[in-house]
């Protein structure tokens, strides 16, 4: 069963299990060659294939059939073949296509990042910063919706939604009854709860974490602070409903919000329950593990300098320190 196949992505070869998707193979390699993904979520079954940001070029189909694939393919949905050669950042065609996709995603997305609570940890912001063009060519009215409260803790800004369907899969797979989904089709599609029914499931808060943009946000954190002024700290608690492993976002002594821990791909490590997310906002209810490591590319780690390599004079050097103490004592002995 566990047949290993060899795949080359941007010139880097790796052996993976047969049936792995190209995106997951690239994530195993890691680094710059991982295609960005807005809709694929490894922890949600059936996700992916919608946003098209993970498009890659297959320059060699497999060892048996070395013809290249005729079109760019979605790497989150395509399994690897033995001897497959994939181009991601080395192909200008892919980069050009990705730029077009970002432009498409931004057609209806409002430019309200200064207001949006997701700003700073928004995948679409990162993506458009890396791949997008500076100005929009779209001249028509953008679609707008009113804000909807999904329960008293979650707010849905449908205007910002890019229809990645992740939250729908969360509602479908994590909660026992499906309470929200997509209404309408094509351009008219929108996320909605049926008759705006309040989600009162214990795991409904996870839609906030899986949302790549600011469409689903935490109402308890709404406009409290900007994410880059808060300090993330890993903590855990004994929770009978979930793993209890979370990140607390501090401002001073106050816990402003609680989220699940996100890995390098921006996916949560384990889903957390609503009690942990919305109710436990006191330090006394948590066991602190230490500061959360945030990639230094992120704005959240701006003005935090602990990742810098200190210069040799500041770097800890026990021998030098001892010599300095000796020298100090010798010089000051007579005083």
């Amino acid at each position, binding site marked *: 069963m566990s047949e290993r196949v060899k795949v080359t992505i941007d010139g880097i070869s790796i052996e993976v299990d047969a049936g792995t998707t190209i995106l997951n193979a690239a994530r195993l390699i890691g680094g710059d060659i991982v295609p960005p993904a807005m809709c694929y979520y490894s922890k949600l079954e059936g996700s992916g294939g919608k946003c098209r940001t993970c498009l890659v070029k297959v320059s060699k189909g497999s060892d048996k059939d070395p013809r290249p694939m005729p079109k760019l393919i979605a790497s989150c949905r395509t399994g690897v073949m033995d001897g497959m050669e994939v181009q991601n950042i080395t192909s200008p065609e892919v980069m050009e296509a990705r730029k077009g996709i970002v432009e498409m995603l931004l057609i209806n997305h409002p430019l309200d990042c*200064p*207001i949006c609570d997701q*700003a700073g940890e928004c995948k679409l912001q990162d993506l458009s910063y890396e791949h997008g063009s500076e100005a929009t060519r779209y001249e028509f009215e953008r679609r707008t919706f009113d804000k909807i409260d999904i329960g008293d803790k979650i707010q849905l800004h449908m205007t910002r939604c890019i229809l990645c369907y992740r939250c729908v899969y969360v509602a479908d797979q994590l909660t026992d009854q499906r309470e929200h989904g997509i209404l309408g089709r094509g351009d008219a599609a929108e996320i909605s709860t049926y008759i705006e029914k309040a989600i009162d499931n214990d795991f409904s808060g996870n839609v906030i974490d899986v949302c790549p943009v600011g469409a689903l946000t935490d109402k308890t954190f709404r*406009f409290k*602070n900007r994410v*880059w002024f808060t300090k993330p700290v890993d903590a855990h608690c004994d929770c009978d409903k979930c793993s209890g492993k979370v990140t607390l976002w501090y401002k001073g002594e106050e816990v402003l919000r609680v989220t699940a821990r996100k890995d390098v791909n921006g996916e949560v490590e384990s889903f957390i329950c609503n009690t942990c997310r919305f109710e436990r906002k006191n330090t006394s209810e948590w066991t602190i593990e230490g500061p959360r490591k945030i990639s230094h590319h992120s704005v959240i780690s701006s*003005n935090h300098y602990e990742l810098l390599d200190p210069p040799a004079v500041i770097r800890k050097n026990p021998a030098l320190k001892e010599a300095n103490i000796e020298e100090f004592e010798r010089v000051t002995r007579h005083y």
Partner: protein
Amino acid sequence: MESLSNRKKVLEQKPMSFGEKIYLPSIAKGLAITFKHIFKKRETIFYPEELRPMSENWRGLHSLKRDENGKERCTACGLCALACPAEAITMEAAERKKGEENLYREEKYAAVYEINMLRCIFCGLCEEACPKEAIYLDGPFLEADYLRKDFIFGKDKLVEEPLKP
């Protein structure tokens, strides 16, 4: 000893002449210069009543701008505070309520916005960072004061005067 560089000039002191000895011509010459200045244009100005014209890119005290309808432009996005190298800016955001649409431009606004003018180095990075064109360093000099707390400028000092109807 002989000078090494040979650039030294030795001054000769001649004895004063009669004209120089009575000093009167020199005094008259000096007073003439003094009286001439009475009729010349004054170089000083009466600050703070009068101000010198400033360069176009002069950076003075900050002001928070209003838009053409008199609404506050600032949305408390925090980018000025993030850009500030002196960490002089703090703010607290609040959500705009129904009926306040004529006061604030967007659904979020700065309920508290403070700049510590003692920390500020007037570099203008906040002005550059602002996506809403809400903050400009177009004010005058920072005036002296007695207490440190008076240098923390709140919205009462920073926000522009509302539009006259």
